[in-house]
């Protein structure tokens, strides 16, 4: 268990805090349940571009309705943040936002002289300028490799500005070079939010449940409503005030422990809001466990049983039909850690055979320290072992090599860019962006229908495979896919 310490401006990256790794190949059972112990990291001597912590930190703060974000770095370090502005506008409809406003995203635009003389004055001015220009209720500063290495004292500047301006000015330390696990950026963002935004509770709201998620469709208002609860979605689409009162909630749930591990633990340890420990509700067994734990935490066990019964009655018949249609098909999964486990559960529940997975990193334990939260362990226990389970941080060259060998009937991915290689090889490939799409009983139906559709409509991928450009060498595609992994068999 990691002890949440909000006095420190920075939170340690996952490699150090949780013993997380990015390189492993073997059976899932070898890796599952090593809670407390630490699996050995295996480095790669060849590698391709990874994700960036600063971008993941940004996604925890840009979508807060009334916030502004300053990237303290060269202009390129906020290059992809416009994508969150797009997301905010497009998905607002699904989250009850009639008129999504322009995201306010700034760069301090550090140049060479700043790296010599420091970028502090520029940042201090930027904070005042952004405050004047946007009237934001909170300003977040996300750091970058350049600002980190030159050693700007971002924390002091933020604190001074906060005292002067009277709004939270939050320093978030998420330099890309600090971690190969870009989800360290989530932790950094949440650390800043927990330090500066969340206020101690002055009262409790016994029907309020924090939901740590991305920007998925609002399904919890209706589901929770059936048992007399209300979701408090954090942090996308929340307001600064809404986040401040998350300490008043009766419990915290998260759609993905890879995302919410740190914030869930912070709310529990610092504000006494219990975190639901069971892995997120993907697949029948996980769904039942999750809802029952929620019932216990909120004193609604009876209502939960009724809800589960209703869900079974509504969806089990169709789930059975889908399972009959999908049984025996093989699938390969590539996704972030906990959500990857969720996808394995969904596929297994629907009768598909998950022959392998390339999951971006592995957290042997989450911040709660609870063994109950070990989602890989849960999926192996519920659905059996995954024989060729690898931890691979989006290394396309390994994935292409593996897919050539595996030739699964379906590639299921959750991260941009990964489906391309399934498709180029003629393998029906599916990426579902909405993280709520696969939840609960209804989620199995949702996924089952989409998988059927993908398997059925394979003309496009078959055609693409005939014309696809392949930059990989013949030599490489004949090698063991893990040749470049430290300690590989020669």
């Amino acid at each position: 268990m990691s002890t949440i310490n909000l006095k420190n401006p920075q939170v340690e990256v996952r490699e150090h805090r949780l013993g997380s790794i990015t390189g492993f190949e073997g059976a899932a059972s070898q890796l599952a349940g090593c809670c407390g112990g630490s699996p050995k990291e295996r480095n790669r001597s060849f590698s391709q571009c990874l994700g960036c912590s600063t971008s993941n930190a940004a996604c925890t703060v840009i979508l807060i309705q009334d916030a502004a974000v300053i990237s303290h770095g060269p202009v390129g370090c906020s290059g992809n943040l416009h994508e969150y502005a797009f997301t905010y506008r497009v998905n607002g409809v699904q989250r009850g936002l009639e008129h999504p406003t322009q995201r306010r995203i700034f760069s301090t635009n550090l140049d060479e002289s700043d790296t010599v003389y420091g970028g502090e004055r520029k940042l201090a001015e930027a904070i005042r300028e952004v405050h004047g220009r946007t009237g934001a209720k909170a300003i977040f500063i996300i750091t970058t490799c350049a600002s980190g290495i030159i050693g700007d004292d971002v924390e002091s500047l933020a604190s001074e500005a906060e005292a002067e301006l009277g709004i939270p000015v939050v320093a978030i330390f998420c330099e890309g070079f600090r971690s190969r696990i870009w989800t360290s950026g989530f932790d950094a963002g949440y650390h800043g939010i927990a330090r500066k935004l969340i206020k101690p509770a002055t009262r409790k709201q016994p029907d309020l449940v924090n939901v740590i998620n991305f920007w998925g469709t609002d399904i919890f208002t209706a589901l929770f409503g059936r048992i007399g609860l209300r979701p408090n979605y954090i942090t996308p689409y929340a307001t600064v005030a809404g986040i401040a009162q998350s300490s008043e909630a009766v419990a915290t749930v998260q759609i993905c422990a890879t995302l919410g591990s740190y914030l869930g633990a912070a709310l529990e340890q610092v504000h006494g809001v219990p975190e639901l420990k069971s892995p997120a509700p993907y697949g029948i067994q996980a769904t039942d466990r999750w809802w029952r734990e929620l019932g216990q935490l909120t004193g609604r066990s009876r209502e939960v049983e009724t809800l589960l019964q209703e869900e079974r009655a509504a969806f089990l018949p169709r789930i059975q039909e889908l399972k009959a249609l999908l049984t025996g098909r093989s699938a390969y999964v590539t996704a972030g850690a906990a959500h990857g486990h969720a996808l394995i559960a969904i596929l297994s529940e629907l009768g598909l055979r998950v022959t392998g997975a390339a999951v971006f990193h592995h957290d042997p334990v989450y911040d709660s320290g609870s063994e109950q939260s070990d989602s890989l362990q849960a999926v192996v226990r519920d659905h059996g072992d995954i024989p060729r389970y690898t931890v691979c941080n989006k290394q396309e060259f390994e994935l292409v090599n593996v897919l050539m060998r595996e030739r699964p009937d379906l590639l299921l991915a959750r991260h941009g860019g990964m489906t391309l290689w399934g498709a180029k090889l003629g393998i029906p490939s599916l990426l579902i962006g909405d993280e709520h799409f696969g939840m609960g009983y209804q989620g199995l139906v949702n996924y089952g229908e989409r998988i059927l559709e993908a398997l059925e409509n394979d003309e496009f991928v078959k055609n693409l495979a005939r014309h696809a450009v392949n930059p990989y060498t013949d030599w490489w595609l004949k090698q063991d896919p893990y040749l470049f992994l430290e300690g590989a068999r020669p």
Partner: protein
Amino acid sequence: MTGIIEQERYTCAIGAMQTVTAIRRAIPILHSGPGCGTMVSGFFERAKGYAGGNTAPCTNSGENEVVFGGEAKLRQVIQGSYQVLESDLQVVLTGCTAGIVGDDVGQVVKEFQEAGKPIVHVDTTGFKSNNYVSHSHVVKAIIDQYVDRFHQGQTRTRNQLVNVFATLPYQDPFWKGNLSELKRILEGIGLQVNILFGPESGGVAEWQRIPQAFANILVSPWPGLEIVQHLEQKYGQPFYQFPHLPIGSNETARFLRGVARFAELEPVRVEAFIAREEQAFYEEIDSLATFLLEFRYGLPGYVHVIHDASYVVGMSKFLLHEVGIVPREQFIVDNTPEPFQAGIRAELATTSSKRTIPLTFDPDAGRAQEAIRGFRHPGRGLLIGSGWDKLLAQDKGFDFLSASAPSPYRLVLTTGYLGFRGGLRLIEDIYDRVLATYK
């Protein structure tokens, strides 16, 4: 200008990995922190090309490389790149981590160069410039460290061949279409063209022929100027510069006549080509004029453009004279270096003898938006900008055409706005958006 930037419209120096991606079978190798490649591909979107995006090798430098240096890791990643990826040219680009730490990238790359590998390196440390500038650095690095190996002392051996440097791959969303039209019209007046980027180029074999060209043509107000100046010194090739994107018939004809005078081409052939193209162009404008003049439900009468200098000037000239949309306040957001600003102002001022077009240079596009919110002009407005500007257009009741990066609301494949054909396409796109507002 080093102030803050809201809503960036370009990216940092390492964004020039897209310059490499645009060369057939060339691969960028990043010696940078883990996120740079993702940031670049996220900025441009759908810009993977042959081996950009997730395919690009990267050292993903971490604490260890920052503290102890990353040369050993770079060496490994380059070696791996040869084993894993097929490529004709490798370009090592450094990011902020390597730049600050001071890795001797040149030395590591030299080992491979000496072994005969087609590899070059270029300093694209993010904070040192931006992709408008570092595009030139990448091109110069390829010329000096790769192309130069193929030149046997004889330069300018082909008196019809020109090298063309125009628009920045991917930063210009229409680069493929624009280069394609450029090649077509230059060939139309009798030249042979090294277009160098995109599907119509011959890849590295074409790059190897750069020294053979008798001259260079630059279609750009300032980005790329460094390249042609360098080539002038290096191979004695003179250059002809046309300082903005020639869009439509007037400017394209002017461009071609300029090239023809410079290259001393046979005027009869040049004029015959221009006449044919003009005729085809005005056949369309002719039949369009009735619509433009008579459509009773409303069409845009004025335009604000938020774009780089090349587009702002090119579009203003075209839209005023050949479409009848009046350019109001214009915003150049490409961080044009100060010494070039006066020239660009003067060029825009030649658009019309009877009106002044107000022009602002500022990469902080948030400020441009703030200004546009405050303007009041009679009639219906058109805003040409990036995806960032969609909401502004909506708030102002403007028609909106997304035509600059980043462009998440629009898909562009091979469309171009340059030249005779590009002008017509721009008209189609503007009025397609306008007519789509009628339900």
